[in-house]
């Protein structure tokens, strides 16, 4: 294994570097988001330590915001964790898609799967069902660092930056992801899938718990069963 993998060391390093650079814009956005998370967490009764530890070990923006909002409104830990689980449910199909690209023992694969965040997962997609895992790790690395750094600044630094929506910063995240969608839309099928997935999620927003609409959109990808059969 080690002898066979040695020639690929350079490839891995290159993938990691390329991923790292690709992750930098998302890391910058994540810094702003996590700063507002830190502020929200303090306002919700979290200590700075709890906010920072949460960012370091959970590292999932929408889930953290959901959980903290529930605690702030007087909810139980169970309710907060359930909301976070629903928010993160999209990582289930993402992990299934990534799974075949992760070699090694079960514990190693499970650990590597923790590197999945939305942008890294999308950019590491190499087509044909394959993912570049070193690109994924490289892209997630700076996002992880700024996620913690932003939480520290927000939870310890106070009121520099209380309301990101005031400056229109809430438009950044969807714009980045729109760019990723456009990169994924290569033909009429992928366009139809994107439109259907988006509309399905939107149609569920008012009736399903937060997080489930996006998970439901992944079911649209089952259309690919027809394609796979055609290719095989």
């Amino acid at each position: 294994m080690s002898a066979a993998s040695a020639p690929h060391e350079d490839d891995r390093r290159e993938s990691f570097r390329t991923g790292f650079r690709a992750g930098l814009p998302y890391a910058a956005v994540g810094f702003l988001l996590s700063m507002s998370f830190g502020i929200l967490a303090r306002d919700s009764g979290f200590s700075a330590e709890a906010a920072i530890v949460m960012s370091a070990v959970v590292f999932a923006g929408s889930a953290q915001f959901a959980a903290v909002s529930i605690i702030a409104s007087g909810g139980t830990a169970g309710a907060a964790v359930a909301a976070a689980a629903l928010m993160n449910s999209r990582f289930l199909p993402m992990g299934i898609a990534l799974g075949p690209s992760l070699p090694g023992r079960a514990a190693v694969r499970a650990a590597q799967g923790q590197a999945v965040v939305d942008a890294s997962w999308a950019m590491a997609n190499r087509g044909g069902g394959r993912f570049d895992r070193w690109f994924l790790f490289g892209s997630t690395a700076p996002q992880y660092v700024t996620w913690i750094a932003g939480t520290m600044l927000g939870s310890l630094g106070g009121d520099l930056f209380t309301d990101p929506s005031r400056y229109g910063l809430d438009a950044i995240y969807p714009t980045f992801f729109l760019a990723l969608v456009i990169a994924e839309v290569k033909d009429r099928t992928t366009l139809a899938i994107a439109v259907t997935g988006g509309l399905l999620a939107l149609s569920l927003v008012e009736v399903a718990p937060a997080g489930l609409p996006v998970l439901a959109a992944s079911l649209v990808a089952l259309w690919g069963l027809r394609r796979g059969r055609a290719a095989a």
Partner: protein
Amino acid sequence: MTATIWWTVAGCTVVTAVIKAIGPLALGGRDIPPRLTGVIELMAPALLAALVITSTFAVGDQWHVGANTAGVAVAGIILVRRGPLILAVVTAVAVTALLRAAT
């Protein structure tokens, strides 16, 4: 309160790690079943579009069209016409902030 918070942190850690681990544990290191290839390829457009649409046309569990919707829409035009990402982002922020300031 403190106990509730730490239980929340611990619980979120466990559920997130488990959700992220299921796919790699179940399918790791295998050849991709041919029929799954087509599904995997379509997951990115489906999931990413859902993230974009729900964060642009909804706030929480309510549909919502606001200044940010306009900002992202203008950015979308730039992106579809192959304009640079940084221009799209700056435009999205500027349009959103200006509309908010004007209303």
